[in-house]
Structures are given as structure tokens and as C-alpha cells.
């Protein structure tokens, strides 16, 4: 670590560089690009969750000769969407495994004619027994993956859980459930495919251009030099544009190859909600041995996730989920068993937090249940168990980052006015006939970057090029989707080389021009890739024989001089990810350093429950976190506020309703996400503790705010009502069912609240 790592953030604070283009509507997303001649593409999908395709009929009233029609026989290479396991077909061949599975593709110049044509195709499916509930062992006739429908089984073991449980004076059990969540990025999935000579060019909304490139290479059987993937400005991703864009890219590519024309596919909202990935539903069981003073003696945790009909990213989501399942607490005896189940549901996929929000929800709700059992203040229970430096996580990772996690909690409580509010709520609840108020907390962590050896395996490469006019160009595959990559990379390069912001250009994420710096996921971009920007700046400076003290005009002059002596040549500084020293992970035993570093959070939610409507309103929210050095306060705060808002939606509003394996409410009219009027101001604060290996001391922060709110809110509802809610979303209907009972008990004891 060099001292320069801690040089002040680019100053003065930088406003989002593309912000004005977005505010004025000048930013061009994939559906905004002016195109000369093109066909619209559309997908014809399976009507059934499982079965054999017996007939595909092209109905009357459509001149089918005017349409480009693609099925699985048009795929040049193997019919797979290459990802972890190549089990998902590009287009169904003979049988289907989930509702909305793509079967046929159509293209036509007129979008309305295309919509009518899609409706005129009748796909007959001879139904077969489907597995539709991941929580139940599958019926023998519904087994479709291995011998048991288990897509992935992982476990973590530390100490001797059975012995510790048997010896524990108190054992507390609980079962917690979380529902699917739709990303609702405001810009739907979209892609354009076009042949440019013999190079097939894909442009579209995506987080990971190199994932798309790989999927195209495999299924199209095409050399990478004949493929080019370009990210267009991306209107939100949240993980929903991590792996899914490979599917729509392949579909668009196939239609373009067959028609010989440019093809554009843009999903409408309903198709996007019904047919693309969502957050994995999960069921988590806890059995915890506790000492009478509240110390955790043993944590026995079982996690089941619904993977859906293909493997996609479920093994890695499960992995992150179980690694976070025991929370940020010290416990010598931990056993975590995780299973991702095959079902005939639309495959679940990456979504901000990637498995950790589900397990943190369960663990933090369970901590409050333990506190209630012991008669302890939930904050005190956490104080007694939060990891101290020198103690280890469930995987045996020893934490020694100098962050005082108890102080973090106490600061959050102080910001929220925890003690005073608890007293005020008690008197309010005793007096009010119509509302109940409560406050709840959650303490949690989130591993930044890829899990285990993931970053080493990615071996991300990044270039900073010196341009003939003395400016520099950052060439990376990491993209802007609202989280601030363009601004942060620009400021990092400018600060490192002592340049003006206007001296830094960020190259378009075009696989023909930028190296593979890895996917834009896993809270890794600012921390991991941002540091590569810094190192590539250093490498560029070394290429022009400057030492690390050279900045500003000295650098610009050296770049210009180099180009004068090497006309037409490319001047590039390269950085390649190196494993941080002292980090080791064993993938076979799930022991070791699961992440290079963790962000830490302490969140406090205050709620008011209306006893007439059973609606829960979040009335105050404090989000305090330690995420290393904060690179750009406005952008970082926005990430936290947006993540908290998304988690409040997940906790209280957002319910995917399923009917025969299909989402029955695939529209924003009845899948509700929070409006401005549903949310309180979200009060954000940071404790800064620079992380030596992150860009300017930064840690990843994008996913952390998804982890804590749901439990904090339900803990607050429990405090308010005396109910013991264990399932989200906690809709008014669900709360009414459980809280009525709790309140009557409380009333009969002459108490306004049960704490």
C-alpha cells in the first residue's frame, strides 16, 4: 500500500458527469438510437410450466411470408446460453421447463403487426408434472434435475454445533421466508443486432459485455473476432442485467443473422416482469444455542432457495447467501446448510445483494426473537455478540480491520434517538386506539467483490491509454447503470495523474476496444476495478518514463511527446488484478477468507402500523455504514438511499403472485414499488475507515443497503404490535392475520405494547 492510496478524493466534489444529459433527455438508451432500416424482434413463449411441445401452429390472418421466423434449428452452435452450467437452451427444443420459456422468435418491420403475429402463434404443450414449490420435497414424477432436484448443495461448518446446542441453556428456533422480487429497472431489457461486414455487432442495455460475448461465441459458434458487444447507456440493472442480456442478445442475433437485417428487441414492461429473472425466494431455518447472558453458543442454519428451471447463477447466489447467514457475530460453533432447488419457475437470478439479503433478513429477525426470549434489549444482544477484531466469521475468516462494530451500532442508535423513541412509543401505544409505533434495528455486513477465489479467477485487466493530445482514456468493461462508474473512474484517474476531469475520457464499453475488467456486479466496480484504474495510471506514467510524483502538465506533455515519436501507435498502461496478500480461501471446505473485505451496517427503522388498515408505514430510517473511504458523498448517499428504498419495497409491498408457475401480477399496476409518498427521508451517515486495497481506500457499497432494512422494519413492527412476523413482504393482509392475535394478547394483559 502506498500513501498515495489515501490522497484526498478529487476535489471539489464532482457532480455526476452524464447527469445533465439524463435530466434533459439527451442521453440515448438502446430504444432511443436513431436507426435507418430495421426489424422489430419478438419472442413467442411457452404457455406451460413443463411439458412436451406437441404442435406449433401459425394462425390464419397473418401473412407469415413477411416475417422472419427462428426456432432452435437456426442456432449455429450448441443450443445453450453459456454461463456456469450450460443447461439453459437459447430456444426450447421439444420440451419446456417453465412458463414464458422462449420457443420461437419473430421479426417484422411493423411493431403492431409483430404483436398480432405473436398472439397468432399457438404452441401446444402436453403437460408433465411440474415442481412449483421449492419448500417441499419434490414428488418423484416432478424430479428433473439429478435424483432430488437439488441444483446446488453447499455447507459451512465451524466447531461442533450438535454438542454446543445440547449444552446450551437456551435454544431458540425460527423459520423465515422471503419472496421473489422483481428488479423494475425503469429501462426494460433491450438489444440491437446488426452485421457490420462479417462482424456481428450487439448493442444494448447490460452490466457485463463479456458475459454476452461469451454466450454469443458459444451458441453462434462464432470467433470472437467476428463479434462485438457494446453497452448502451443502461437505465438501471440491480443484477437484472447481469446474466439475462445474454438471452435477448442471442435472440436478437439469431433474427439478424437469419433476416440479414438489423433487428431490435425491446421488451415491454409486462414481458420484462413475467419472463426475466428475479430475486431468489428463500426459506431459512434457525436453531440457536444461547447463554443466559445472550452470548451466541451455536448457530444451526438451513437455507433453501428457489433456483427456478435452470442453474443460471443460483450456485453463486446460494454461496453468498450462506456465507452471510450467521451475520456479523462471533460464534464458535456454526453449521450452515444451503440448497438451491430446481423448480419449474422462470429462473431466478442476480439481484442486488445476491442471496445475502435473504439470509440477513432471517438472521436479524431471529436475533430479535432471541432478545425477546431473554428479555434483553435487541441492541444489547447485538452489542454482546458483534464481531470484535481478532474474532472470526462462520468461514473462519479473522476480522482485523480496526472498525469498532459496537460503536457503529451505538452511533446509529444515537442518530435515530433510539432510547427516547422507545419511551415515546410506549406511551403512544398505550394511548392510541388506532396506531402502534415501534423501532427496530439490524446489524449486518456485506462482502465486497467476488466470493472466495472469484476475483483471482476473473483476473481482471484494465487499460489507461495516453492520447496524442495529452488526455487519457480509461478502457474498462465496467459500465455505468446509474451507480456512478463514469464519474468515479474519471475522478480516480484525474486524481491519480493530477489531471483535470476534462483530461479524462471513459471509453465506451465495447469488447472490441476494452479489455475484460470483469462484470459490473458484486459491489466490485469502485473498489476493485477503481483500484485497477489507479494502477493502470501508474503503469502509463511508467511507460513514458515518469516517476510517481509526475502530475498535470508534466504528464500531458510526456504523453504528447511520446505520440510525436511513435505516430499512430497505441500508448497503454495496463493493470491486472493481483490476489491481495494474506488472503486465502478453500473452495472445497468453504473455509478461509470469503471476501477481501466487508462493509458493515447498522440500520434503524421506525414504523407506524395502522390498526384499521394494517398498513405499515416507515416513518424514519437511519442508515449508518462503514464502507471504507467514501469517494463521492452524493453518489454514495444515493446508492444507500436507493438500496434502502428497494429493500423497503421488498419488505412491505413487492409481492410476486404465482399462478401455475407464472407471475400473475406482471405489471406495475399490481406489483407495487415504493413511490415518493411511501417513503420517509432516508438518513444516511458514514463512518470512514479506509481500506488499503480499494481505490483511494474505498470498499464496495452498492449491495450493502439491501441487506438490513427488511429485518429492521419487521423488528420495528414486532416492537409496535407484539406480533412476530417472519415472512416478507409483510403486506397488510399478512400482518392482519398474525397481528390480530398478538394485539389481543397484549390488550388482555392491559399493555399497549409487547416489547
Amino acid at each position: 500500500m502506498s500513501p498515495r492510496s489515501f490522497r484526498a478524493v478529487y476535489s471539489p466534489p464532482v457532480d455526476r458527469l452524464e447527469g445533465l444529459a439524463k435530466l434533459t433527455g439527451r442521453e440515448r438508451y438502446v430504444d432511443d438510437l436513431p436507426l435507418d432500416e430495421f426489424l422489430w424482434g419478438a419472442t413467442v413463449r411457452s404457455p406451460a410450466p413443463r411439458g412436451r411441445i406437441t404442435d406449433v401452429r401459425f394462425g390464419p390472418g397473418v401473412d407469415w411470408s413477411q416475417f422472419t421466423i427462428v426456432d432452435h434449428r437456426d442456432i449455429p452452435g450448441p443450443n445453450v446460453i453459456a454461463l456456469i452450467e450450460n443447461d439453459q437452451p437459447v430456444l426450447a427444443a421439444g420440451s419446456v421447463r417453465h412458463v414464458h420459456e422462449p420457443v420461437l422468435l419473430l421479426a417484422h418491420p411493423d411493431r403492431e403487426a409483430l404483436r398480432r403475429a405473436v398472439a397468432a402463434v399457438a404452441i401446444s404443450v402436453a403437460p408433465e408434472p411440474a415442481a412449483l414449490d421449492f419448500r417441499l420435497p419434490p414428488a418423484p414424477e416432478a424430479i428433473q434435475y439429478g435424483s432430488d432436484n437439488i441444483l446446488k448443495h453447499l455447507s459451512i461448518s465451524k466447531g461442533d454445533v450438535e454438542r454446543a446446542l445440547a449444552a446450551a441453556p437456551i435454544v431458540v428456533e425460527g423459520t423465515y421466508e422471503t419472496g421473489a422480487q422483481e428488479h423494475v429497472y425503469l429501462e426494460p431489457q433491450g438489444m440491437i443486432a446488426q452485421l457490420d461486414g462479417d462482424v456481428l455487432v450487439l448493442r444494448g442495455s447490460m452490466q457485463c459485455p463479456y458475459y454476452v460475448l461469451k454466450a454469443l461465441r458459444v451458441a453462434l459458434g462464432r470467433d470472437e473476432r467476428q463479434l462485438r458487444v457494446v453497452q448502451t447507456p443502461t437505465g438501471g440493472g440491480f443484477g437484472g442485467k447481469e446474466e439475462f442480456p445474454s438471452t435477448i442478445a442471442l435472440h436478437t442475433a439469431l433474427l439478424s443473422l437469419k433476416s440479414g437485417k438489423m433487428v431490435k428487441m425491446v421488451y415491454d414492461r409486462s414481458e420484462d416482469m413475467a419472463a426475466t429473472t428475479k430475486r431468489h425466494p428463500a426459506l431459512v431455518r434457525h436453531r440457536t444455542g444461547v447463554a443466559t447472558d445472550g452470548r451466541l453458543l451455536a448457530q444451526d442454519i438451513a437455507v433453501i432457495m428457489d433456483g427456478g428451471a435452470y442453474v443460471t447463477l443460483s450456485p453463486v447466489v446460494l454461496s453468498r447467501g450462506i456465507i452471510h447467514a450467521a451475520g456479523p457475530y462471533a460464534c464458535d460453533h456454526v453449521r450452515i446448510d444451503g440448497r438451491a432447488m430446481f423448480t419449474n419457475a422462470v429462473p431466478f437470478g442476480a439481484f442486488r445483494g445476491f442471496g445475502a439479503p435473504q439470509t440477513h433478513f432471517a438472521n436479524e429477525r431471529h436475533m430479535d426473537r432471541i432478545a425477546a426470549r431473554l428479555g434483553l434489549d435487541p441492541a444489547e444482544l447485538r452489542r454482546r455478540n458483534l464481531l470484535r477484531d481478532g474474532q472470526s466469521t462462520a468461514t473462519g475468516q479473522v476480522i482485523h480491520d480496526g472498525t469498532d462494530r459496537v460503536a457503529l451500532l451505538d452511533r446509529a442508535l444515537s442518530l435515530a434517538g433510539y432510547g427516547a423513541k422507545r419511551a415515546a412509543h410506549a406511551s403512544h401505544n398505550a394511548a392510541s386506539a388506532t396506531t402502534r409505533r415501534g423501532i427496530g434495528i439490524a446489524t449486518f455486513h456485506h462482502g465486497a467483490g467476488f466470493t472466495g477465489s472469484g476475483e483471482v479467477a476473473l483476473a481482471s485487466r484494465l487499460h489507461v491509454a495516453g492520447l496524442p493530445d495529452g488526455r487519457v482514456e480509461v478502457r474498462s468493461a465496467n459500465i455505468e447503470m446509474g451507480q456512478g462508474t463514469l464519474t468515479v473512474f474519471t475522478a480516480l484517474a484525474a486524481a491519480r495523474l493530477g489531471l483535470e476531469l476534462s483530461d479524462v475520457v471513459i471509453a465506451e464499453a465495447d469488447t472490441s476496444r476494452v479489455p475484460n475488467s470483469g462484470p459490473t456486479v458484486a459491489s466490485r466496480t469502485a473498489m476493485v476495478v477503481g483500484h485497477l484504474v489507479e494502477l493502470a495510471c501508474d503503469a502509463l506514467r511508467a511507460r513514458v518514463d515518469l516517476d510517481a510524483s509526475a502530475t498535470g502538465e508534466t504528464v500531458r506533455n510526456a504523453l504528447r511527446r511520446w505520440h510525436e515519436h511513435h505516430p499512430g501507435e497505441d500508448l497503454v498502461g495496463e493493470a491486472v488484478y493481483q490476489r491481495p496478500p494474506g488472503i486465502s480461501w478453500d473452495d472445497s471446505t468453504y473455509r478461509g477468507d470469503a471476501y477481501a473485505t466487508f462493509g458493515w451496517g447498522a440500520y434503524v427503522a421506525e414504523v407506524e402500523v395502522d390498526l384499521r388498515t394494517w398498513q405499515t408505514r416507515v416513518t424514519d430510517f437511519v442508515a449508518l455504514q462503514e464502507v471504507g473511504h467514501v469517494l463521492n458523498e452524493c453518489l454514495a448517499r444515493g446508492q444507500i438511499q436507493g438500496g434502502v428504498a428497494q429493500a423497503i419495497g421488498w419488505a412491505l409491498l413487492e409481492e410476486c403472485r404465482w399462478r401455475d408457475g407464472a407471475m400473475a401480477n406482471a405489471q406495475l399496476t399490481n406489483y407495487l414499488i415504493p413511490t415518493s409518498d411511501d417513503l420517509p427521508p432516508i438518513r444516511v451517515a458514514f463512518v470512514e475507515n479506509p481500506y488499503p486495497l480499494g481505490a483511494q481506500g474505498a470498499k464496495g457499497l452498492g449491495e450493502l443497503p439491501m441487506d438490513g432494512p427488511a429485518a429492521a422494519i419487521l423488528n420495528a413492527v414486532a416492537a409496535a404490535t407484539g406480533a412476530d412476523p417472519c415472512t416478507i413482504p409483510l403486506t397488510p393482509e399478512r400482518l392482519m392475520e398474525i397481528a390480530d392475535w398478538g394485539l389481543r394478547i397484549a390488550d388482555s394483559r392491559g399493555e399497549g405494547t409487547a416489547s
Partner: protein
Amino acid sequence: MSGQSTIHNPQSAISITFTLNGSTISVEVDPAERLLDTLRYRLGLTGTKEGCGEGECGACTVYLDGLPVNSCLVPIYQVRGCQVETVESLDPAMLQPLLASGATQCGACTPGVAMTACWIREHRELLATHSIRELLAGNLCRCTGYDGIVDGIQTSLEVGA
């Protein structure tokens, strides 16, 4: 105007004249075509975005005779003789407070948010009876949690007071 592919049935096209961002224009168009599509695909004004197509998200907000409406719900025949203003008509200088407050992240909802923000600024008498959060509730944003937007509107009210 880009050469986007045809999106109308020529047999049923009629001529519709309206005022767009201060200029009178006429289009030959299926009267049932959505105003949103006329703006985006026929006239190349792609600043107005489609988020949901059913009037829930507000990304396609335009002013119709001075009132903010969801252009995905307006058949083009309804704008005959009307004044239509889109995000392209806004003064960028008015949007500076929203930039500084972090009101935009991914930008897909942002043009609609900018339209509503400017409308609130021009109709501040509404703030006697409604909060900014209530007036903004027709614009869904999935990135910001709304604080950056609300703060930016608040600042723009103070700046322009």
C-alpha cells in the same frame, strides 16, 4: 427525424395538427397511436421515455395544455389543436439543482421526473395543500429512493423564489 420503421396502418391515417414545444406541426398518423410513440418514433424526440406503458411510472410525462400527463395513455387524436411540451423544451439551467442533489442515477425515469419537478416549481401554490412527495408520487424511480429528487426540487424552489 430518424428513419424508424413504420408503426401505423396507412389506411387509417389522418392528419393531426398540434403545437409541439412552441412550433405548429402536422403528422399523418393512425389516430389511435400513442402520443408517446408519435414523439419518440415518428418525431425523434426520444427524451420522453417509456417505463411501463400503462400510466403507472410517469417516465413518459409531457405537458398537455400545461398539465403533466402520461403520454403512453394519450391517443394522438386527443392532442389535435393542443399544446404539447416535452422534456426537450426545458431550460437546462433550471435543472442544475437536481443535478447537484443527486436526483438522477440511471436516468430512465429522469426526464419524467424533470418535467414534474419543473411543473411543481411553476405551480408552487400547490405546496400549500400538498407535499413535494405527494406531488411527485406519479413518477416512479428505482434508483434514488427519491431523497435526491425531493431535495433538488426543494432547492430549486428556494433558488427561484
